[in-house]
């Protein structure tokens, strides 16, 4: 951040605590901060602040107002990022705000993704909050703030900004996880997520410090310059720094052995929050990870590729093997999200252009699939958000055929069945791995998707193999109404998964054009 205003100030003078002598100060040149480069981020933060003020000042408010407002803010940021996409398309990527923030295809890809997630998350949350009657716009405010954090992580061209984005995202999520304070699991999830999150961000920060020490700057551009210029870049401190960065990102992305928090937090947190977390937080984690490792530490490729290989293999296997023995739907989806992270790691490990595009495509399609799935989980969870055991899904097709069908499509997509985006995503990533000649990883990827197919199908079978006494039991419990907003989310996610499964061209081009400004 040497572009900061205090540049000219004799900082070390302060340390020595002599009396101030302002005359000898060098003139101060101010960085021109173009706010247009961070339009979507500011829109989100502005929205959050407006919500805060709104609730503070205005007493009465119609129930759906907050959700509508959040959706509007989401759409606004989507529009803004689309404009930036066109702008970048025209006159190329650029860095802004004294090289701290970068505006390139890659960052705008994530801005679009996060905006969409905000919109869908708000829709998903609205009826959930009404059902659980959790008053107050906190859900929306925190979601907007964490999304802005996610966007910062994606468009950071400086490790400091990445760290700040990570923190904004995580702290908002800690509170979101603990939102439903009636359920003890929710609070427990919040505590666990908080302690481990703090711990891993401290480790991440230490990594940043070491990288700073080794390369002399935290700006990704300058780090790349340093790595290319110096003759023996890979010294101990730098490698240790890279390793600790990987720990921080690994935690956020839930790669094994840092994944232990994921099942508990996903099960404990309220379902819409889990959905948002699985889509938004994971995407942001990968945004930072891919940019830092793929673009910046490209010259150190030979160093970090083996360790990423180990992480990917562990993640793939543990994710799918553990998911089989789970009894709770949210834990199943948690472990499946871990195995999906494994697949994206395959893309990273391939460390080639196709791998990056494959990973981006995977994150985009996975976001839709997981949001749709958690909408269904929220619905089936009914009041009190507790009915998540697999038996709750027995015979669902008899009672709610549309819901069951939607859930089946989403599950099959996650299993990678052809004619869905899930299949293309896995195919894209694995072909990148084969191109990058890491055949063993591709093989393990396919093996784990075979194992994964089992527990996806297990749920599908449960839904369609209804037993008689289930009918009677269902009659007693309150009917499973599908509110409009949830229906919209389901429709959008299923439509996206199947439509772009059949004619994938537009989305694949979108992922491919999201190039990185090294």
């Amino acid at each position, binding site marked *: 951040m040497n572009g900061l*205003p*205090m540049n*000219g*100030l004799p900082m070390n003078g*302060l340390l020595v605590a002599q009396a*101030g002598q302002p005359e000898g*100060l060098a*003139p*101060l040149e*101010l960085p021109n901060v173009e706010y247009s480069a961070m339009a979507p981020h500011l829109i989100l933060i502005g929205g959050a*602040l407006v919500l*805060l*003020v709104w*609730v*503070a*000042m205005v007493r009465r408010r119609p129930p759906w107002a907050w959700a509508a407002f959040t959706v509007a803010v989401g759409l606004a940021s989507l529009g803004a990022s689309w404009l930036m996409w066109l702008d970048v398309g025209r006159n190329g990527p650029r860095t802004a705000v004294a090289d701290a923030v970068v505006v390139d295809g890659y960052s705008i890809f994530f801005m679009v993704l996060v905006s969409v997630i905000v919109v869908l998350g708000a829709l998903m949350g609205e009826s959930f909050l009404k059902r659980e009657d959790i008053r107050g716009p906190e859900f929306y405010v925190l979601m907007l703030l964490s999304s802005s954090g996610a966007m910062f992580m994606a468009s950071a061209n400086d490790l400091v900004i990445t760290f700040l984005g990570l923190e904004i995202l995580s702290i908002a999520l800690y509170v979101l996880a603990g939102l439903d304070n009636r359920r003890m699991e929710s609070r427990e999830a919040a505590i666990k997520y908080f302690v481990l999150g703090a711990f891993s961000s401290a480790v991440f920060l230490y990594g940043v410090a070491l990288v700073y020490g080794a390369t002399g700057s935290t700006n990704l551009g300058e780090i790349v310059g340093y790595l290319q210029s110096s003759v023996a870049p890979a010294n101990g401190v730098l490698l240790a720094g890279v390793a600790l960065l990987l720990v921080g990102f690994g935690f956020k992305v839930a790669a094994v052995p840092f994944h232990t928090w994921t099942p508990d937090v996903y099960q404990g947190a309220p379902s819409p929050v889990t959905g948002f977390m699985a889509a938004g937080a994971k995407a942001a984690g990968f945004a930072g990870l891919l940019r830092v490792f793929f673009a910046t530490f490209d010259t150190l490729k030979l160093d970090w590729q083996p360790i990423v290989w180990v992480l990917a293999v562990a993640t793939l296997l543990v994710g799918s093997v553990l998911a089989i023995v789970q009894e709770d739907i949210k834990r199943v989806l948690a472990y499946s999200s871990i195995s999906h992270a494994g697949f994206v790691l395959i893309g990273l490990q391939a460390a080639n252009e196709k791998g990056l595009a494959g990973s981006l495509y995977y994150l985009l399609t996975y976001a839709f699939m997981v949001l749709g799935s958690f909408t269904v989980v929220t619905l089936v969870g009914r009041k009190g958000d507790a009915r998540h055991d697999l038996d709750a899904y027995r015979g669902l097709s008899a009672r709610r055929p549309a819901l069951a069908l939607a859930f089946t499509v989403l599950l099959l997509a996650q299993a990678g069945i052809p004619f869905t985006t899930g299949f293309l995503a896995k195919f894209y990533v694995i072909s990148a791995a084969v191109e990058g000649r890491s055949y063993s990883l591709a093989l393990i990827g396919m093996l784990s998707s075979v194992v994964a197919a089992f527990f996806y199908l297990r749920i599908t079978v449960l839904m369609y193999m209804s037993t008689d006494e289930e009918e009677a039991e269902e009659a007693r419990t309150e009917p499973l109404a599908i509110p409009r907003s949830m229906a919209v989310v389901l429709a959008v996610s299923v439509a996206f998964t199947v439509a772009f499964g059949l004619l994938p061209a537009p989305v694949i081009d979108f992922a491919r054009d999201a190039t990185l400004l090294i």
Partner: protein
Amino acid sequence: MKALTTLIAMSGFLREYLTVLVFGAAAVAMVGAMLGAGSLLRPKRAQLQKYISYESGVDPVGTGWSQSQIRYYLFGLLFVMFEVETVFIFPWAVRLEDLGLFGLVEMVVFIAILALGLLYAWRKGVLRWM
């Protein structure tokens, strides 16, 4: 002996610290000696009353733990937040003139956002001291 030689060769910078070190060590040694001698010499007849926590002569009532008022915490938290805000205002204040209008506007925005936070907390009834 080697330790002594390194001691002398140390630069002036360290010597100042050395004096602080010596002075502290002397104080600790004196107090330690007095208490140590006392505990060695006095007879030891342990009785329960001797181990009751001393609350300025008043007999302690209830367990050691008591329901602490939440509002103390809340004020603590708010204090931390705004104290960190000041951390940012200090360097700004030092170079106020050079930063000019741009600097002023930016700091106003900064403070306004935090004020918004305070407003929200106030409306939520955090500040009510009951």
